């Protein structure tokens, strides 16, 4: 029912499978992004500590994390390649018309990705083979290139939200100003937002694994460090993310009023707009939910008299369906709620650390930290839904509607079904592989596990016997 509500009767038949497939594959890929972007940074933090202080625990962590990163990077690389194909297969209307503008940030991204792939291989290969510091710097290239890659992809995405730098005549792009396309109005904040999100998700997810170990009583230095490094990174990023998110919301209020009206669930243009927590849109009216008087207006313009454009300000022809508005609004609420929980957890950690100066052993804290990664993932996915669904019915705001971008050839359902099946196998496989790696590390030692880029296991190699009890 929800699905049929999302697609109007006048929409082309391929719109539903195309959107669902794109949403699914992007939603899958975005889980892997934090590991390529931020996990490698945490690995380098440990690596740096190992080199500076000759810390064997940190070294072991860095080595094991690099292997996990390699597996996830490989899966991310192939799922990213699929997205490249999908842009052509599912959205020929977008690529054919706006390829000259929307396309080139991906060329820049390709450059960064190339660097990342090469140096990832060198880094993984380099353990025990390259001199320590040069080896460390090859890892640094991976992390820096991943920032560049993120910026490029976000440039393309933010351009869809606030397209600038193109001259269109007769439905064709006749002129492109690359700098204005890349550095469009939404670029900088969206980029920082995504980057921080990557650090938060990767940080909480990795820390969660060690929090669970600490919870189960493995309070050795290895687990403490494995928890401390990623958790600190995420806890520092969390308050920053709130500032950035708040700024972005006001920018959306300014420049993307229809998205903002969906986020805040505003039926008619007015001031003294309440902040609705929960609630949905039915027949263009707000139903259910808790209303906090004036709060939306205050958040948007710092005074209760701030006017917010409502649903009625959107021309009828391009009004999103009720269900779309509800999804955007609820996703936004989920994002803010989960992020608030994570902020509280970060503050809790700050408090405990300030008091004792050591890794907290409070069982409730460790339990919460163990699931924080999943909460962060929910936050990431819902934030992404807000951006993408909130733009509907547009693919490129004001220039191209999604129904005109979608493919008309063939039947996309079989492709979608196959993609679902294969991705399911890949996801199960990835989880199984990570479990196997963990088990082998605890039973046989670090060198028992080979990774896509690295050397094969050589039993003769010396095992540095610390933290051999897993992960």
């Amino acid at each position, binding site marked *: 029912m929800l699905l049929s509500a999302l697609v109007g009767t006048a929409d082309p038949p391929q719109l539903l499978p195309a959107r669902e497939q794109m949403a699914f594959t992007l939603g899958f890929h975005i889980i892997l992004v934090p590991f390529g972007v931020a996990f490698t940074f945490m690995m380098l933090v440990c690596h740096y500590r190992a080199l500076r202080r000759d810390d064997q625990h940190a070294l072991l962590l860095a080595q094991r994390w690099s292997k996990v990163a390699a597996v996830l990077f490989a899966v991310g690389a192939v799922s990213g*390649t699929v997205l490249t194909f999908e842009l052509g*297969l599912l959205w020929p209307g977008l690529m054919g018309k706006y390829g000259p503008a929307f396309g*080139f940030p991906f060329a820049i991204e390709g450059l960064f990705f190339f660097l990342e792939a090469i140096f990832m291989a060198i880094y993984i290969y380099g353990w025990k083979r390259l001199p320590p510091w040069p080896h460390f710097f090859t890892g640094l290239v991976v992390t820096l290139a991943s920032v560049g890659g993120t910026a490029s992809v976000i440039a393309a995405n933010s351009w869809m939200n606030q397209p600038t730098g193109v001259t269109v005549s007769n439905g064709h792009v006749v002129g492109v100003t690359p700098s204005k396309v890349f550095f469009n109005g939404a670029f900088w904040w969206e980029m920082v937002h995504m980057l921080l999100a990557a650090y938060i998700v990767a940080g909480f997810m990795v820390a969660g694994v060690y929090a669970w170990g600490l919870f189960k009583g493995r309070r050795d230095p290895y687990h403490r460090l494995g928890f401390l490094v990623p958790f600190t990174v995420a806890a520092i990023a969390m308050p920053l993310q709130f500032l950035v998110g708040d700024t972005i919301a006001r920018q959306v209020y300014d420049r993307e009023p229809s998205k903002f009206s969906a986020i805040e669930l505003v039926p008619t243009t007015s001031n003294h707009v309440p902040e609705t927590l929960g609630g949905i849109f039915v027949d263009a009216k707000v139903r259910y939910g808790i209303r906090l008087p004036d709060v939306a207006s205050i958040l948007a313009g710092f005074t209760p008299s701030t006017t917010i454009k409502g649903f009625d300000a959107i021309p009828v022809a391009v009004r999103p369906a009720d269900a779309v508005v509800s999804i955007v609004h609820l996703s936004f609420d989920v994002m803010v709620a989960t992020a608030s929980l994570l902020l509280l957890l970060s503050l809790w950690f700050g408090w405990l650390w300030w008091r004792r100066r050591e890794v907290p052993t409070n069982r409730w804290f460790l339990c919460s930290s163990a699931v924080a990664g999943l909460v962060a993932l929910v936050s990431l996915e819902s934030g992404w839904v807000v951006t993408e669904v909130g733009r509907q019915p547009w693919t490129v705001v004001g220039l191209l509607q999604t129904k005109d971008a979608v493919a008309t050839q063939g039947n996309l359902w079989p492709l979608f079904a196959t993609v679902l099946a294969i991705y399911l196998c890949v996801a199960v*496989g990835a989880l199984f592989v990570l479990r196997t790696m963990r088990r082998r590390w605890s039973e046989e030692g670090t060198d028992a596990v080979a990774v896509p880029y690295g050397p094969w296991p050589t039993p003769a190699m010396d095992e540095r016997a610390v933290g051999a009890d897993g992960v």
Partner: protein
Amino acid sequence: MSTLIAAVLFIGVIAYALFGGADYGAGFWDLTAGGPARGSHTRELIDLSLSPVWEANHTWLIFCLVTIWTGFPQAFTAITTTLYIPLGLAALGIVARGAAFAFRHALTQSRGEQISGVAFACSSVLTPFVFGTIAGGIASGRVPLAGHGDALSSWVNPTSALGGVLAVTVCAYLAAVFLTGQAQRRRDTSLERAFRYRAFGSGTVAGLVAFVGVFVLHADSPRLFHQLSTAGAPLLVVSGLCGLAALLLLRRGRPAVVRTLAAVAIATVVAGWGVAQYPYLLGTHLTIRQAAAPAASLWVLFAVSCVAAVLIAPSLLLLYRLQLRRKLG
């Protein structure tokens, strides 16, 4: 400018044919290596040679895709709306292959290794075949200007079949030559001999396929045949000579020389296709010039390519050098 970008695009295609091709070919030999016990020796060599470079080798594909959609968007959508079936298959093949390869490494000595190994090897054969059919469909002018060409006959046709079979055999040949060198470097004489035979076999088959291909093209794609036999002829002659020389030198020549000869043989064939197409991008209905994006986008692509030449080329060299050095130590 548009011709320059088209040339850059073709350099990407050639690089993908060489590096990606050798990668796929290794998967072909993995598939045909025999049961788990018999094939383990061969598979180990394949994995050792592939592991550090397999990711980088496939980035060329991304490079080609982004260049064509930014530089020649109209041609890109004409291709994707016509050849969507093989393109979809290729995308799925790439996922299955990459994921299975990554998993296989982490799952050594278990059932998971075999399952992912089979997925890796099968998709390594399927994917280049499909890419070959796509190349055949484009080269024989079966992609109409407005796209939405026949979903089946655009890639199920004699030229596409030729392209697919040629792609698989050429990949196998390339990989066998590379792997002969790798085995030699590891002083593994039995594997070296095995791969030399494989290189001989696949090289001969590729030569035969190319020979039969002459007649296929003559009947199925007269324009391509004409262009190949005139403008593209010098390149094809070079290709044939290099391919032959590589086979003859396989036993005694230095691995680097043999490898280079084999690579030149493949590169010139692909370049021959490019020369034969010129100045058209699709059939005889869309020239490179007509298909080109606004100048600013082309300049960005050119700048990206220059930066790539400065940054990526030395990094790749470093990677390949490190890979070779490891085999020595």
